[in-house]
């Protein structure tokens, strides 16, 4: 069985809860290498997504993600707004108007989201950005989709675990993109807040299948 609009709404709801719960943690991560706004912006953005979802309930997973994209792009600001906005928009396009998303389509949508972030932010793996969470996540998702029995939950769990490991892997990296890059060597030893929020969002996607 694939993923329906109920899953998409649960995913976004769990994401909003995660941003509220981790707001302070994300601000604290952003403080030494950024400008202390990431947790606040993500929390504000996903609260706005929740409002939009209740105003105009979407009928397909793709519609839910598109609504999320437009809301994040218009409400979050900073770099995170356009980057997550593009990610959700590309994923929504990949899902099309399907109301029952299978494992292969899901993995392709995650890939499209990552590619959107790379195009928009011009960052590569190893630059200490959210790409370092997304790249291993889409690779793990593709492997799970190819190897498995079509179980969408396994695809999302693989993506979430890889994203979490990817976020941890940013600790020793020297930032080459975004505001942390101004610090040069002093960015080493800090975890990238965008990679952490990405892992939270992908964990929420897996959680929404329960």
């Amino acid at each position, binding site marked *: 069985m694939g993923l329906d609009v109920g899953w998409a709404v649960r995913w976004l709801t769990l994401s909003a809860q995660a941003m509220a719960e981790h707001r302070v943690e994300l601000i604290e991560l952003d403080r030494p290498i950024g400008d202390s706004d990431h947790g606040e912006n993500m929390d504000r953005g996903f609260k706005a997504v929740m409002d939009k979802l209740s105003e105009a309930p979407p009928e397909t997973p793709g519609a839910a993600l598109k609504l999320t994209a437009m809301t994040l792009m218009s409400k979050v600001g900073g770099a995170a707004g356009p*980057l997550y906005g593009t990610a959700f928009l590309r994923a929504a396009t990949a899902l099309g108007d399907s109301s029952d998303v299978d494992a292969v389509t899901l993995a392709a949508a995650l890939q499209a989201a990552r590619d959107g972030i790379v195009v928009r932010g011009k960052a590569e793996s190893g630059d200490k950005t959210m790409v370092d969470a997304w790249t291993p996540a889409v690779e793990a998702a593709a492997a799970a989709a190819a190897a498995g029995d079509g179980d969408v939950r396994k695809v999302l769990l693989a993506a979430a675990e890889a994203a979490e490991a990817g976020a941890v892997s940013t600790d020793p990296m020297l930032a080459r993109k975004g505001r942390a890059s101004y610090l040069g060597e002093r960015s080493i030893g800090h975890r990238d807040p965008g990679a952490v929020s990405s892992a939270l969002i992908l964990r929420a996607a897996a959680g929404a299948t329960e």
Partner: protein
Amino acid sequence: MKKLINDPKAVVDESVEGFGLAHADLVTVFPDPKYIVRKDAPVAGKVGLVSGGGSGHEPLHGGYVGLGMLDAAVPGAVFTSPTPDQILPATLAVNSGAGVVHIVKNYTGDVLNFETAAELAQAEGVEIRTVLVNDDVAVQDSLYTAGRRGVGGTVLVEKIAGAAAERGDNLDAVAAIGDRVNQNVRSMGVALSACTVPHAGVPSFELEENEIEIGIGIHGEPGRHRIPMENADGITDRLLDPVVSDLGLSSGDQVLLFVNGMGGTPASELYIVYRRAAQKLAEQGVTVARSLVGNYITSLEMQGCSITVLRLDDEMTSLWDAPVHTPALRWGV
């Protein structure tokens, strides 16, 4: 955290509302989506100038809306770039048909959000040019960083490009003079203390009593390195020398010297910095033809300053001298 605020989440709303009340003769404030436009916008036949960025840098950018400078300013959350749903209506509101120039400080978020808004405006038939400001010599400009930040030079770009638009220059000419100012301006800053973002509630970095941070930006982000406290002349040299050498100033050059306070430094100290910087430039045969000293692009209540030097030519000098009437800059009117 001790601040003159009511609610950390309402800081920008209430501050911009107050700004609109205080300067109702010059500007109109739109609350949601939030942007500030010149009272008489759009001015017939004139190229529109729009800038914006995170709040917390006041008087930048709202304070520079008015005759001879910006037509609109778009304030984001504190230290967070504004969003396309604010930038687009601000752009449309100041378009007289002559096109609109976006003046954007080089930060990843500002660039991405203005890029999106420019695409949307162009889809609605408005011609857009973008002037990117990246004058901060503290950041190494290489493929391996997000590039130099836009700091003090932004104020000078807004004034001089604004004067060019006011005298009737066309869209490409206004953008070209903005680019020319950016190419001839360099800045570097220092923090003696950090600032506290209202919704974070704690200082954005910690400095010991005897430490200063060299090469800071304007978002409370840490700088390039940290050194023990020195006297004003020593700190001035550390800021001015890289600016002068990066600009490649030589004897006979005419410059505008801009000593900017970061929000928590008294004017008297800014003048001590100005004194040293002007003396050093004179020793090198550089003529300080114009000056600006005060809190013009700030980082909340941060203690510290930045030094900006603009290499002038006759046209830039006359555009600098041209009349301006905004909440934060006014002369010749």
